[in-house]
């Protein structure tokens, strides 16, 4: 099929206009175009982000007073943090970056027309929606789900809540994630444009490559664990129930064997995004390309060996605790390497502090705070004090929200002009960022203090001595609300009303900047020119 000369070329229209076989909403939800699927993921994950946020907001209100400002019945608060955790982890942060930006940009960045299995890709999104609906249906079951996102046995085997429904939903979501992983790995192996060698690939695809392996290898373990809880509840077999000879710690092992690698599923793509934004706004090549690639693979590998650091106080054997603590410290090495290389990339650059860059730099700061407090948690003697306190809550909000979600928001600013061909309002973007950043630190840094004071997590009510910091944190959450509302109002308005953006507003050198904004269905109207090296700014400016 070499009819490329025919004037109205197939797929030359922008993907936003070319709705394919169906029209209207069906042109989206049945589209196999990776870009349209990317937008589907974007809309649906952001929807769940807003739901999860509103729950987080309610939790903060409850924490205003020691006896519970909102609910006198702990059941409601317990349901809040359970749903908040499940939604934020399984419905937002795990699928968000790979599903939306990964789907949209990875094929373009490697010079491909689409992913390897477009229909499977659509199926993944449908499975995601199905899993979400099933998980949320558990709300209307025999009682509000109240186990926390970890579903620890034997509590999850006893509670009256509709846990089978919830874990089945998570199982389906896992499937969706596995299929995306398979699709991405195959795409990167088989669909790179001629001339796009492995080590010319930009770092975002590389990060997705590492992530996909974790998804393919770790998610099934979560799948089987959830399935076991499911059969245990429905058919009364005994696997984890101590009353039937089972060992609840084995549940925890299996759960964290997935869920620790899952935290790298959340952070690796985000790190990829940072590695895109920093060179573009510094107008120079990334420092230590190879080091960043290999550290991604190192994180994926080492990250699968540290799961039991969530179980130091559970009665793990002393030898196991020692080994897992040691490995936990080793997995921090590749993250440190990345942080240093990003910082070095600023050296002798020509830096434009555009909003995406501001997010990228805040990522480095917030992720470092989160990561360094992870080290405190990984030290055995300290973990004993801090496990299951607000210190842990603060740690993971710093890495997940301050890390993964900040990178995501930054990348939305970075790629919005490419995805929709329109630019956002810059001053609104700066104001939104400032509110978000201030509120964020006020909210979560206070939680470190609470943790050190000994405030346990998952408490609907608390001792009066914790009140002052709790109130400060809640005020922080209000500032953050304001920030988030500004950020998203700005982005949403500009999708429809923003000024037209050029094809390459930032002067980027990766392939997505060579094509029109918004991209045509076919992605590349003529075969892309593959640069000599990844991030070859000198070459780009010389020509």
């Amino acid at each position: 099929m070499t009819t490329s000369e025919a004037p109205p070329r197939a797929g030359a229209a922008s993907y936003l206009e070319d709705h394919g076989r169906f029209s209207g909403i069906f042109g989206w939800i049945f589209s196999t175009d990776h870009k349209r699927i990317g937008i589907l993921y974007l809309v649906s994950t952001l929807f769940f982000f807003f739901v999860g946020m509103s729950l987080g907001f309610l939790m903060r209100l409850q924490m205003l007073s020691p006896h519970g400002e909102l609910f006198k019945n702990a059941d409601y608060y317990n349901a809040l943090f359970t749903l908040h955790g499940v939604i934020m982890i399984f419905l937002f942060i795990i699928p968000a970056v790979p599903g939306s930006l990964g789907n949209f940009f990875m094929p373009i960045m490697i010079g491909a027309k689409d992913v390897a299995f477009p229909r499977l890709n659509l199926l993944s999104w449908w499975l995601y929606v199905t899993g979400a609906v099933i998980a949320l249906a558990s709300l209307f079951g025999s009682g509000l789900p109240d186990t926390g996102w970890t579903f620890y046995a034997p509590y999850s085997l006893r509670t009256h809540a509709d846990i089978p429904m919830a874990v089945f939903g998570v199982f389906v979501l896992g499937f969706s994630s596995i299929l995306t992983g398979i699709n991405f790995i195959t795409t990167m192996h088989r669909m790179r444009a001629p001339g796009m060698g492995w080590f010319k690939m930009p770092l975002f695809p590389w990060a997705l490559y590492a992530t996909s392996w974790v998804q393919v290898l770790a998610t099934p373990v979560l799948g089987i664990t959830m399935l076991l809880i499911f059969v245990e509840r429905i058919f009364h077999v005994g696997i984890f129930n101590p009353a039937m000879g089972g060992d609840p710690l084995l549940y925890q092992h299996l759960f964290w064997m997935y869920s620790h690698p899952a935290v790298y599923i959340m952070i690796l793509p985000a790190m990829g995004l940072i590695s895109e934004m920093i060179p573009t706004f510094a107008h120079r090549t990334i420092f230590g390309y190879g080091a960043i690639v290999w550290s991604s693979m190192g994180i994926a590998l080492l990250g699968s060996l540290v799961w039991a650091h969530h179980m130091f106080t559970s009665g793990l054997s002393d030898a196991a605790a020692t080994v897992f603590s040691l490995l936990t410290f080793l997995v921090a090495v590749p993250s440190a390497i990345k942080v240093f290389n990003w910082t070095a990339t600023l050296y002798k650059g020509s830096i434009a502090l555009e909003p995406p860059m501001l997010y990228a730099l805040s990522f480095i700061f917030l992720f470092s705070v989160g990561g360094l407090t992870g080290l405190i948690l990984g030290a055995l003697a300290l973990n004993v004090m801090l496990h299951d306190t607000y210190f842990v809550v603060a740690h993971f909000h710093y890495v997940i929200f301050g890390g993964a979600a900040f990178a995501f928001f930054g990348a939305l600013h970075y790629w919005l002009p490419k995805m929709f061909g329109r630019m956002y309002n810059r001053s609104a973007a700066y104001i939104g960022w400032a509110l978000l950043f201030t509120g964020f630190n006020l909210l979560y840094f206070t939680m470190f203090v609470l943790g050190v004071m000994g405030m346990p997590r998952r408490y609907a009510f608390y001792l009066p001595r914790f009140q002052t910091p709790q109130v400060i944190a809640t005020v922080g959450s209000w500032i953050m609300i304001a920030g988030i509302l500004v950020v998203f109002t700005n982005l949403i308005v500009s999708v429809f009303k923003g000024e037209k953006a050029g094809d390459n507003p930032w002067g980027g050198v990766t392939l997505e900047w060579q094509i029109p904004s918004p991209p045509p269905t076919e992605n590349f109207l003529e075969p892309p020119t593959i640069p000599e090296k990844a991030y070859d700014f000198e070459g780009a400016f010389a020509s």
Partner: protein
Amino acid sequence: MNPASTSLTESVTHVFIYIVALSALFLVGITATMIYFVVRYSRSRNPKPKDIHGNVALEATWTIIPTLLFLSMFYFGWTRWEQMREVPRDAMQVEVTGRQWSWSFKYPNGKVSSELRLPIDTPVRCDLHSLDVIHGFFIPAFGVKEDVVPGKHNFAWFDPTELGTYDLLCSSYCGQGHPLMMANVVIMPGDKFKEWYSTQEAATGPAHGELLYKTKGCIGCHSITGIRIVGPTWKGLYDSEVTVTTNGKTRTVKADDDYLKRSILDPNADIVQSYPASVMPVQKDLTPQDVNDLIAYIKTLK
């Protein structure tokens, strides 16, 4: 540091300070470098960027130095922890039982208490048992924490060095009553403790009922002050009119001895209106005398 206001005890404060100081150093260093570069190489100051692809010596430096520092952090954390795991020979043993949603403590001489009373400066080893789900044995003031896992024999030990009353909290999520699953840890002078330790509790009657109320878990769900927790309050319960559901039918009964006995031994026979069924555990280890004592105790709560 004042141990009452923080969860860090002295033995680990050093580790904490070491890791926090190193982290702060690096955090400040990286942030400052970042800001300096952003200002120094801003587009207006430095319009012409320079592509620098990398530097092997630098890469090696910032791989090896952090690795060594990380290993040192591991080492300090680990050695202090080893000490925390080694129970002194002369430690007193207390059996701690956690259940939804209360604690009880059993001493070597068979004494049972709802408070963890301990003599000062005597190391204590707590053997942790759970009757239902996982709980967390957490005393912030002494920096002890260990999960209480059904079917496992976990333990924790500490050396109470200051007089006073401290909180024992449940750190591992265990359901509705999780935030209320608390007990007092009372550190007493040695002689006062001995006195308390050697007094016998009443073996029958309302006083024994009260002890059972506190140590058999009832306290986790039933208040004696009139407020509603998980189950109905016991205040004014005796001889009151209670609306219950029996075999699906709603009826009103008088809370007499018979009714209370049935409610205790077979909680699902009559379900009190507006409360959930099969939440209250079946009480297997109560003797008939215990039940009578509990009822006698309830009688006193006018």
